[in-house]
């Protein structure tokens, strides 16, 4: 059921625009909205004060070390935590999956990155190696009935998670897609492909909330 008030007041979906694949997520969200025939505004978030106005938040891929530092420096980190605590749907891809996690591996600790601790997950920063090991693969994702092309770039993985986390996909012994309530984390980059199913799934979360 689509919330009537959201249709009256133009809904905002925010993409954290500190660094990384920002325009790709903005484009994918706009296309997903268009396909559903929904009028909503997709905004880029570089500074404090915008997150609380958003009905959904995307943390895109980029360099997690850089993202974590600047999210804290700009004061956005706290805002995302508060929004997620209120149940605002949040999508994190690649670096975003790391940022959302509760615990990191040695690599994460080495740089003193401040993780947001929104998901009850423990992550491995470069679970799939360096750039030469980066890959594309057809994935089975629990929420879809046909394979999804996963683009993995120096990708992280979820090593373990708490009971509240639902595993959506695995690759080898790594969890590469998971959700916890309204929070969705992916180790790969749906925004680099033309497949809009992830963004539509996320949009449904926003509309149903």
């Amino acid at each position, binding site marked *: 059921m689509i919330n009537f008030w959201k249709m009256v007041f133009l809904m905002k979906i925010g993409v954290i625009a500190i660094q990384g694949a920002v325009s790709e997520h903005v484009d994918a969200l706009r296309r997903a909205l268009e396909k559903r025939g929904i009028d909503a505004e997709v905004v880029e978030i570089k500074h404090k004060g915008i997150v609380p106005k958003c009905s959904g938040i995307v943390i895109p891929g980029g*360099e997690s070390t*850089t993202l974590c530092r*600047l999210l804290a420096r700009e004061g956005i980190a706290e805002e995302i935590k508060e929004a997620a605590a209120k149940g605002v749907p949040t999508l994190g891809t690649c670096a975003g999956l790391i940022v959302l996690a509760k615990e990191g591996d040695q690599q994460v600790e080495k*740089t003193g990155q401040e993780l947001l601790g929104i998901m009850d997950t423990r992550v491995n920063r470069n679970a799939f190696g*360096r750039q030469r090991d*980066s*890959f594309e693969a057809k994935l089975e994702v629990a929420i879809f009935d046909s394979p999804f092309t996963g683009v993995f770039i120096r990708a992280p993985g979820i090593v373990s998670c708490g009971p509240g986390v639902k595993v959506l996909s695995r690759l*080898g012994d790594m969890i590469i897609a998971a959700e916890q309530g309204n929070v969705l984390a992916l180790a790969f980059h749906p925004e680099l492909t033309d497949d809009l199913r992830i963004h539509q799934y996320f949009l449904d979360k926003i509309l149903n909330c």
Partner: protein
Amino acid sequence: MDFEKLRHGTELIKRGFARMQKGGVIMDVTTPEQARIAEEAGAVAVMALQAVPADIRKEGGVARMADPEIVQQIIDTVTIPVMAKARIGHFVEAEILEALGVDMVDESEVLTPADPFYHIDKTQFTVPFVCGARNLGEALRRINEGAAMIRTKGEAGTGDVSQAVKHMKQIQGEIRALAGKTKEELIMVARDIEAPIELVVETSKMQRLPVVNFAAGGVATPADAALMMRLGADGVFVGSGIFKAENPEKMAKAIVEAVNNYDNPAKLAEISKGVGAGMKGICADMIPVEEALQERGW
């Protein structure tokens, strides 16, 4: 899961890596300590090299790939991606860097070219490449050879941003001029600028380069970095500008923040306060053509 089915080094993976660097600052470093400072400041990647361009310019001689020992130490020190420079056409240096685990190779005019006619066939590598360009033809030739990222050449090691500005405006002006042209007119442009017609058509349609385009060559202050972002750069490389500055830590952090706040003059003013003197530099116009690094590459 069948790990045999994983596809490595595809165009999507290579260009995708470059896209993850967008909005970021990539810093030249020559030691693991400098790499740590860069990471701490918020760099998205570091570029490992033997000497920063300003020193290469001063010392003269043949400039080659960095010592693999140092590159390895830098890789082991930081969690962010490590890039390194190979000489133009020196595919073996590039292979060595790939074998070390470098995340992106810069086939760079800052080093002494190893081949007077040809660039590296970058399609043969799993690791992505970045290459310098001064104009659209050069950029599209490099992309045709497999470059996953373009950067302006600017004039490295000068601390003078004017050449980076010139190259960025040149490329963007040429792209704007493609708009509205017919197929036959685009074919004529492709002949004129010595670039493949398919890439000229793609660029005309997208109204931007088909890969990420960074600014490089002479960026020395937070204001310089913000200027390049305002001109449409996807991100910024800073070479000598950081570790030739009076206070590298402050300069590095300020340049990262300037790139994130490039469209906010009040914030840029705050960021630029008290960062100490920028590198001394040399006016790019004072450099004789035969000593200009940007003339290298074909």
